[in-house]
């Protein structure tokens, strides 16, 4: 069967490029770790002794994990600081299971720990860690009530990282496929990565959906027209982009662990785009702020702090955009540059300045 070039592009190259784009964007932007690091997330079940309230002096938590690769170099543990600067010191120890001696043993001041965030315990890289089971424990030395940290109950509780260097990978190219498979596989153990990766997969998913289902209704030439003539979406009954956006927005509230302005910049720009496409009034943006903020107390009562926090963050972002939108709406007709020019002219026409100028001119 002869395959036409167009079919090859439609069936082969385009999906491949979109998948490649998905992987690349996910690996580069969705993961907060370096490309050459494999990170594996663990939840509470991996802890041998679990204690989620304050870690008082001499109390410890311990965990066991099986190394999935060589080059184990970091164990990051999520702590709770109760929003204060604590003065405790904790000892972090790690050894291979079955061995008596600790491979690594170091004391850390907890005043550098962040609330509900990971603290990175770096250790000398173990080059032959793959397949071995490791045991680590964290012990408080002088924690006391009101002045101690605890292990956060939020999953993942801890993360292990395997550090490969570019030189090592390039020197031994046979390990690259294994490295990539593990990297992709274990990246999905992090819910943040999964959600972000899902966003980057949307072009591929939309393409496939279109290709197998909508194509007969929506031939390529129409797609081109849809993109060029984007204003047709403004029709009263066509809010598909808005719905997609709100779907993604809800997804990020419910499934992301942390929302930062710098990380959500794409979504913010998309919303600005939608404002332009649909000519949305600032009250719509404020409404989203209201909706987000209304979610927050509900989930706070339900003890889902992360969702409450995410919702509050989106409330802030929409309030910010709404305010900027309203300020823009107020001043776009006023032509601010022209206004400044007029103001300066007014000031220079002021009789006192004229007097000063006169005196100045008279100076020898």
């Amino acid at each position: 069967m002869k395959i036409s070039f167009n079919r090859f592009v439609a069936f082969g190259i385009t999906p491949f490029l979109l998948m490649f784009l998905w992987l690349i964007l996910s690996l580069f932007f969705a993961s907060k770790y370096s490309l050459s690091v494999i990170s594996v997330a663990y939840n509470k079940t991996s802890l041998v002794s679990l204690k989620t309230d304050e870690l008082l002096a001499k109390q410890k938590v311990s965990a066991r994990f099986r190394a999935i690769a060589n080059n184990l170099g970091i164990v990051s543990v999520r702590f709770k600081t109760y929003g204060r600067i604590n003065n405790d010191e904790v000892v972090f120890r790690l050894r291979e299971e079955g061995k008596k001696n600790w491979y690594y043993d170091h004391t850390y001041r907890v005043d550098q720990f962040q609330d509900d965030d990971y603290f990175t315990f770096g250790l000398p890289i173990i080059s032959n860690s793959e397949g071995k089971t490791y045991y680590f424990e964290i012990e408080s030395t002088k924690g006391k009530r009101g002045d101690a940290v605890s292990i956060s109950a939020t999953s993942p509780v801890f993360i292990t990282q395997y550090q490969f260097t570019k030189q090592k990978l390039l020197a031994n190219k046979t390990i690259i496929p294994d490295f990539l498979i593990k990297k992709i596989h274990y990246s999905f153990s992090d819910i943040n990565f999964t959600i972000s990766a899902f966003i980057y997969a949307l072009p591929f998913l939309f393409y496939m959906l279109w290709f197998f289902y909508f194509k007969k209704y929506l031939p390529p030439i129409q797609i081109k027209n849809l993109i060029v003539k984007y204003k047709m979406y403004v029709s009263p009954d066509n809010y598909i982009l808005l719905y997609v956006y709100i779907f993604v927005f809800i997804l990020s509230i419910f499934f992301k662990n942390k929302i930062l302005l710098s990380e959500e910049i794409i979504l913010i720009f998309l919303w600005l785009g939608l404002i332009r496409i649909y000519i949305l009034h600032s009250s719509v943006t404020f409404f989203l702020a209201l909706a987000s903020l209304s979610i927050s107390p509900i989930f706070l009562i339900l003890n889902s702090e992360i969702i409450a926090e995410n919702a509050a963050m989106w409330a802030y972002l929409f309030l910010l955009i709404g305010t900027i939108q309203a300020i823009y709406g107020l001043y776009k007709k006023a032509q601010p540059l022209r206004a400044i020019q007029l103001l300066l002219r007014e000031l220079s026409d002021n009789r006192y300045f004229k007097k000063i100028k006169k005196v100045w001119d008279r100076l020898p």
Partner: protein
Amino acid sequence: MRKSNIVKIIIFVSLLLLVNFFLLRPGFWFYQDAGFWPKTNHEAMALFLQQFHIFTNLGYYMGSDQGLLSFTRILPVGFTTFVFYILKQNNSQIVFTFTGYILSFASFYLFSGIFFKEKRLRYIMSLVYVFNPLSYTLQGYVFYNATVPLFIYSFYKYFFNKEGFRAKYLLLNIFASFIWVSYIRFVQGYSFIIFPYLIYLTLRNRREIRLNKIVIFLFSYLLIFAPVIFAFISQLLERSDTAFNYGNLFGNYIIKNKMYDAFNIFQSVGAKLYEGKWWSTLGLIVFAYMIYLITTFSKKKHSVLYLLNLSLILIGITMYGLGNIFGDTIYLQVIHFLPFIINGPYWAMYILGVPYVILIGLLTKDRIKHLYIFTFFLIVLATFPLLNLFDFQLQKYNIDSVPTAYKTYFITSYTSIPEASYYFLRDCWRAEFMNEANVPTFCINYGHHYPPIIFDNPRVVSGNTNDISQFLYATTHINNLRITHNLKNIFVPNDMVKTKGPGPITETKEIEMAKNANLEFEENKLLSADNNQNFSNYVFVDKDKYDFLIYSPKTIIFSQDFNILTGDTLDMNTRPVILPKNSLQIPDAISNNVKIEYKISPLEPYKYYLHVTNIDNVNSFLIQFNQKYSPIWQMKLISKAYYDEKSCISDWKTFTITNNSYCQYQNSFLDLGNVALLKKRNVSELKHFQGNFFSNTWVVSPQDSQGENELYLVIIYAKQIYYIYTILIAGITLMGLFMIFIIQEVQKKIRRHI
């Protein structure tokens, strides 16, 4: 306004105050920061005089350059002293608090008149403002709330009234500025509200601006705030390590607040009234309600004022959640410049009062029922302290309930020379009687008789003073501190109990440490004990034979190791001084029989008059002054007549071991005689260096004594001389403005009659 409406408003306000009757109970608050309320007239006066000194040691044996903190608190401290002298402990704080409420109400009422005409709306908004949740958390210091509205109102009236220059508005503006600067944490925060408002009002009324008003305004500010400007600029020029202590300190760690709490309008700080999940939830719902009003408002034409206030609220929220919004890197960069707005979760929230209320006013202007809903919310909140009578933080403290031992040692008025004291585990602990009285931890402030030698507040001191204080924590090896710190007393708590509520942490470990310390001090043969059930007071048996504040060392010990302080190697009889090995200008031989007599006043810690005798004219001699080292301390040669001008009000006390004696002189309110010191010759600055690790050593050579066998000297914190000038300039300017104000008002009245 109709009479019936006035009556309704009066009844309403009275009811509000009635539900807050907790303010009216006898006793006063000793909560941590507000524990600075004076306990005796002498303390009140010392607090007031502190504003006129650039170097102070109030409450500590060691002192520090106050820098920006000098003179800034003159207004509230002056008022505190005034009400304290008239009404004493119990009632003075109540009057102080009520004055704050009234001032805030009046200020907001005047301010709201710039934007709203309807009086009813303005009255309700002023009530909302005064009874906003943050008023309670200000713990009696409600007058801070008046700053923003009063400043903006007076600025507006001064610049944009059509009557020309009116001194009363300028004076009102200066008054607001003094409140503004009186609490260092609000200086930055309030500027985020005040300056945008000023820009907005200036643009709106730009045609009314007159150059003469600008010149008078700037000139008056420059002169009246000269002491503050001088204190700050001089620290910058000195490259003082304490000028940016706050920025450096807070820049070391990141505080991440919950974003949902940024929207919680029931923010609770010091008093912890509205803590917990349910309060956060309620606070969020109230804010969501406000956004609901915003969404409906935006359908109308946007007013600039509406967007200004919305933006200001967003700035507050952004600052509150900076770490969460932008991440660690930006947080750390910002905190160096704005430590007072993002240090801690709450300072950013304090600035929101005005924009919140103005925004609520704008949103509900035509929908008055919504304003009633908001007012209702806040009244419910105002009644909360009534419902929670046993709230720990708001309990008032009756000084009569303090055990006699504490009263005798720390509360009884003491006006003589203080005795350096070492408090094992710091000078503040939770004592048993505090549990019985169900009151917060009471920290002994302004120990006029027994000031602590430990001064480790990194916001105020840095360098060796701070490091040594940290080093000496919980030590029981204190014998050498007699020489380096002039130590005479040791206090060890006996009634320490576990922490309850805010305050220093005392747990089983600390209680055990205090017990062990008692055992060790009891075995120390140099000490005699005077114990009671509240604390043990150990006194060095020979404390009347030495005074190491100002003395002439006989021997020099070279060391750079702090451990020498907690050793037992120094022999007091050799009058040693510890110097670093590389000290410059140390003569090979020093005169060892020099005698020093000095005059001292505990209320003027920046100046000491010395009479030095037994100078041998061949060898140099050392003078050691055990006070925080600074190159600003200068030793000046004065005449006998100048020395004699200061007469003693106490007997001379002689110390045989240190071969010196002192008497107390009568302090003056504003010693203009200091100005004469400008012309006096200095002992060379090259011969002034750090001795005993943190204090001042001078080498006085035969050239300085010029063949005389006695010398008259003064040790002065030199900046104080210039500081006095700036205070005089400020005072004269203020008096001038007052005179213009009186003339203008009289003229106005005469014109009306004509």
